[in-house]
């Protein structure tokens, strides 16, 4: 048991801190769920990438620093403590990139990763469909074989960032005759501006177009944009769900910074008694999440896989995030109702946490069945 960092790790932390102090915009950027804000966040990604801070844990060949998991965690602590902007490329960096590292070809990595790292190409995810949410494997959007590639048709929805993004990745049914729904799915990347794609933005609770519906009508995708073998899409999508991606979707640094902001808000409001326990729980929860992640990272670095335990993680941070922001809005009293504050934007964002990336009900089923060994039953 050891929670000390090496001199090299501390030096890395100090370097990140110094860079962020010099570069983080003094004024917050406009919301990334607006056209103007989206563009401003892409400029910020380019600034990060110019000094190799956008994807520190990636190999240098793709724009990273080969920094490894521990340094990535330290970077994230510094990043959010510095009040740096949200990451417009989060979907690509934390969902698509790990899949390409594990299942992509060298050609795909060389083509896709550097412009993702620089923010030049922003990726949206295309998993859910109107009739396939938690039961994702029942999806019906299809990929039909054609000369040199595939034709995609169907409807995807709740596609985060798709209102302004460039490209998307997701699962399509390539073999309608496969014996089980999890079989016959193919993992593909496609251009959101290709002929046959219609993007219809959807306003989330606060009216901002944070996601979109995608209508696909015989959209051509070349073979080079298939990840892994056709028909293996489910296995590919799920295998990265359980490993480091479970760790990297939401870093502890984010919540440590949020808890600190809440503590300051509570102090500024005169340390009201009614919020005392909830503020303490925010501080404690951030530390618990940090230490849980250090333990998981330690195991990962020793070659263990994280597996279904990432479901513990997802339920914890998503519920923690809402509780923290509810406390903040309560502390703000009448001002808690305002829609154009940083706290309210973060609150609205937090509300989606238990729904996306596998609802918390699905996560609890996974915990019960795969970690506790309870029998499968009706959902």
């Amino acid at each position, binding site marked *: 048991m050891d929670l000390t960092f090496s001199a090299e790790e501390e030096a890395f932390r100090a370097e990140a801190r110094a860079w962020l102090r010099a570069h983080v915009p003094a004024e917050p950027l406009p919301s990334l769920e607006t056209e103007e804000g989206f563009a401003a966040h892409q400029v910020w990604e380019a600034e990060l990438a110019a000094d190799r801070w956008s994807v520190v844990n990636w190999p240098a060949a793709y724009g990273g620093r080969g920094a490894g998991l521990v340094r990535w965690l330290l970077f994230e602590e510094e990043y959010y403590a510095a009040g740096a902007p949200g990451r417009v490329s989060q979907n690509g960096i934390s969902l698509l990139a790990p899949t390409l590292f594990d299942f992509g070809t060298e050609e795909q990595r060389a083509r896709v990763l550097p412009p993702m790292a620089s923010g030049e190409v922003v990726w949206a995810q295309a998993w859910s469909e109107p009739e396939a949410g938690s039961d994702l494997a029942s999806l019906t959007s299809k990929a039909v074989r054609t000369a040199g590639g595939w034709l995609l048709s169907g409807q995807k929805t709740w596609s985060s960032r798709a209102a302004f993004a460039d490209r998307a990745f997701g699962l399509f049914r390539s073999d309608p005759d496969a014996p089980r729904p999890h079989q016959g799915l193919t993992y593909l990347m496609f251009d959101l501006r290709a002929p046959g794609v219609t993007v219809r933005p959807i306003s989330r609770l606060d009216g901002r177009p944070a996601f979109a519906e995608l209508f696909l009508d015989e959209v051509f995708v070349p073979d080079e944009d298939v990840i892994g073998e056709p028909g293996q899409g489910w296995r590919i999508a799920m295998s990265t769900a359980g490993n480091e991606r479970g760790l990297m979707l939401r870093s502890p640094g984010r919540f*440590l910074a949020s808890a600190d902001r809440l503590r300051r808000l509570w102090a500024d409001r005169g340390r009201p008694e009614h919020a*005392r326990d909830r503020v303490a729980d925010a501080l*404690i929860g951030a*530390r618990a999440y940090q230490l*849980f992640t250090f333990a998981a990272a330690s*195991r990962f670095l020793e070659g263990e896989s994280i597996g279904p335990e990432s479901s513990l993680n997802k339920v*914890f941070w998503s519920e923690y995030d809402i509780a923290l922001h509810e406390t903040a809005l309560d502390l703000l009293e009448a001002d808690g109702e305002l829609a154009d504050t940083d706290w309210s934007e973060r609150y609205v964002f937090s509300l989606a946490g238990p729904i996306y990336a596998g609802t918390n009900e699905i996560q609890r089923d996974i915990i019960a069945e795969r970690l506790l060994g*309870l029998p499968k039953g009706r959902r």
Partner: protein
Amino acid sequence: MRFLLDAEQRAFAASLDAMLTAADTPSAVRDWSRGEHAGGRALWSRIAEAGVFALAVPEVYEGLGPRPVELAVAFVELGRHAVPGPLVETVTAAALLAGLPDPGPAKRLLPALATGEATATLAWTAPDAPSTPACTAVGAPHSPPPQPYASPPCAPSGGQPYALDGDVATTRLALTPEGLRLSPGHGPVRPSLDPARRLTLLQPGGELLSPDPPTAQALAHARLVTAAQALGVGEALLGKTVAHVRRRTQFGAPIGSFQAVKHRLADARIALEFARPLLFGAALTMAPADVAAAKVIACEAAYATARTALQLHGAIGYTAEYELSLWLTKARALRTAWGSPQACRAEVLDAGRLSGDRRW
């Protein structure tokens, strides 16, 4: 950074678990609750032989410590098996005695605590403890009707702290703002909601061991091992309840296949899994705020698991006879032992930060 127990620490946990499983600990708990201590004392000797109490005693006093991480490892197992007796108090007494400016009392008392020949209890009066008038005992004849909004409230102990198992402990310590005393004796045993916890008031007076004991250090030890014990209690409750819902069939299916049941157990697992790193993080730093955070979260996780365990066992879980009760009642008692949830949260807020906060 390597935030994992090493092979030796894991083996230590496994050996304690095996020893306590083989020892028919539940019988010792039942006997202890009735004031029959022979089985519990035998268990105590075996725990001491395994080196548990020595972990709290520095080498100069014939111990192996102080080793808070290993203490936490051990107390998770003691909680898992609901071991009775003043375990936390003995460890806390060791931390207190070892930190006295005058080595005399430590030389005299610590070696026997390390070997298990002596057991200690400790009554701790916080510096800011309110002076509370004693209530008339519940059910006493001719007691006046309770005053629902009387201020200040009364307490059965009159605000005095209880010492756990004062009738068994051979070293009875009273820690007050005036110093640390060796108490001359104890009052009658009062029942706890956890029958295996026997609460006593200590008699005032006795030898003054030190006017200036290391209170904060001792309290950190008490809270750390209470948190560990609670985590073990919670893990045992979860394991027993998972086994029950796999076996118990209703509507033609194991009740553990029902989503309402699964989700309660999943939540229990989440709460326990996030308490564990707080516990071991606190054992590494022993910073009072870190330990307080571990204490409140581990105890709340254990208590929430107890509520789930009771609900999912149904009526059988509500009986004193069924073995589950040994853990159910302990989870409740540990919540307020050595610092209520609100006191622990106040400690965190007063510090304003926990270790791992990069602002410093």
